[in-house]
């Protein structure tokens, strides 16, 4: 049967796998479907899952314009127009707190977290021994694969009031240092956790980019008398500037999403004023609090603003002569 099908395909279009750029050779749509039906069938389960859980939910955003009641469903719930979006023009203190915390965390994490992988990558790259370099990479990548539940647990066991640091201080006659559960230190704690978890993993992309730089440039510069710092400054950094800007754009596009799982796990002891961000606001008001319309509206606004940020940042990159995420 398979053979039969293939021979039919070969008759229809002798050079079968070739690109379909030549319009004359392009078979009609139905012929192409019958030619590719097994191929499409192989991909269909994945395609259906993608549509069902990535695109169908987009339709669910209509409840942002409803007084949604779970027992009535989308069909029966009352339409309320823009009422759920009133948080945009009426000062809603809980929303403003969440927005403030989100923006502060984004700024802190972009400034503090972002350069760490680059610095670590430059440090690793300056090591001479390949074997040592690879061993260090293996160790530093590891925390990336731990879940936030595990990372938060580890931080508690290390820095909590009964954790390793404080046990050590206590045994040596020092007062304990309260770190976990202190609202003033919460943003610093979150930032430290992000660095611990992902700084090592973040080096992988910089190291890959650095390994693509032509080594002869370094050799020529060294012959001309440039020392290691100058070579880094004038060769390595300019070579990875585009990548750096690309990553910065992606970060900017995500700037309204900061550490959702991470924060949900630690929100209890710290309290909402210090820890509520937009994502937790949606969760706490919608799933927990039952105010579905409002939280869907906040989620929708957040999504739209996120898309606008990516497009805007990309325009900015083009203005600076960089490629950005997608071409113009």
């Amino acid at each position, binding site marked *: 049967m398979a053979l039969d099908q293939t021979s039919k395909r070969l008759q229809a279009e002798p050079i079968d*796998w070739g690109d379909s750029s030549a319009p004359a050779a392009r078979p009609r749509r139905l012929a192409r479907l019958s030619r590719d039906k*097994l191929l499409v069938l192989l991909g269909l389960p*994945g395609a259906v899952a993608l549509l069902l859980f*990535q695109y169908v939910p987009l339709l669910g955003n209509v409840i942002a314009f409803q007084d949604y009641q*779970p027992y009535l469903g989308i069909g029966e719930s009352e339409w309320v127009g823009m009422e759920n979006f009133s948080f945009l023009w009426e000062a809603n203190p809980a929303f403003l707190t969440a927005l403030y915390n989100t923006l502060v965390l984004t700024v802190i994490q972009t400034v503090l977290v972002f350069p760490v992988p680059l610095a670590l990558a430059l440090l690793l790259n300056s090591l001479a021994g390949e074997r040592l370099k690879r061993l260090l990479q293996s160790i530093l990548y590891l925390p990336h*694969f731990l879940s936030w*539940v*595990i990372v938060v647990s580890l931080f508690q066991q*290390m820095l909590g009031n009964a954790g390793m640091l404080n046990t050590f201080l206590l045994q040596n006659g020092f007062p304990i240092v309260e770190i976990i559960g202190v609202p003033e230190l919460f943003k610093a704690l979150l930032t430290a956790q992000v660095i611990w978890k992902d700084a090592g993993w973040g080096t992988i992309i910089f190291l890959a980019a650095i390994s693509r730089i032509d080594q002869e440039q370094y050799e020529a510069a060294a012959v001309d008398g440039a020392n290691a710092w100058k070579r880094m400054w004038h060769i390595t950094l300019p070579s990875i500037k585009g990548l750096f800007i690309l990553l910065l754009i992606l970060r900017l596009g995500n700037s309204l999403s900061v550490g959702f799982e991470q924060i949900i796990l630690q929100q209890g002891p710290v309290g909402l004023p210090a820890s509520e961000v937009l994502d937790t606001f949606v969760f706490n008001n919608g799933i927990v609090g039952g105010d579905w319309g409002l939280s869907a509206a906040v989620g929708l606004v957040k999504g739209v603003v996120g898309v606008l940020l990516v497009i805007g940042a990309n325009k900015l990159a083009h203005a600076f002569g960089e490629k950005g995420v997608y071409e113009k």
Partner: protein
Amino acid sequence: MSTDQATIGDDTVRPEQANGRPVWMEKPSLLVQALKFIALAISVALVIIPFWSIIATSLASQETINAAAGGMVMWPGGIDLTAYQAVLSGGVVTRAMIISILITVVGTLLSLATTAGLAYWLSRSGSFGSKPMVILLLGAVLFSPGLIPNYLVVKELGLLDSYWSLILPVMINAFNVIVMRAFFQELPQELFESAAIDGASSATILVRIVLPLSKAVLAVIGLFYAVAYWNAFFNALLYIQTTDKWPMALVLRTFVVNQTTIGGDQLGPAEALPPQLSLQMAILVIAVVPILLVYPFLQRHFAKGVMIGAVKG
């Protein structure tokens, strides 16, 4: 990329290199070397110490922990496995572990199968429907639908409180499909042509030619999926209501992060209840160990798998 440069993972030592350093490169000063060593030693210690200390504490006896004022220890002072016995001989943690293992295995297999199928369809240029599908794929990388709408879809499908709610919504990751598609496109296309001429169907080509040539990318993407399933916390929090269906992450949150006391009735039969801290650390170690076990086998493929994603994505 020129081939004569030393790339990551390149084992060959070129003759002009001494200690892996090209001849034109000056010997770094002692001060610089010392600073580098200190910076790297601190980074590595920050990663290793937490692991070491949770393993040490999970093995420690009540006396050792009492001597440390009830806190974490760096040296267990003898191996005491009662915490593991208590946790693994039945009860909440054992059940959660079995659930997590099943979800991880079933989920990863389904994810790899569907991802490979979709990537293969989209990697054949000019195949029916591939162009619009690629656009939908890229869109899925850039936008996420949001928490509430996702919840509604899972609810409408009747998946709430079902194990499938932990698999189906995350079964396909658009970014992984893009990486795998890029990998398939880089395979030598003449192989497929000659196989097709020999009468092999698309499915045969996928199973007999494409997949055997794609072990590296399958390993990396399989690891990404497996880690995501094993670590799944938020979906479980959102969709699983029955305590009996909890995966490891929820058990970890309840007993370790929130420090809920573990009662003797929640564990398997044990002679005496081990210290709470040892129990907590044993749970934490059990959650971490599977990742530590698969990690060394897969990490040599990272650079390759991630690079393709970075360049083509």
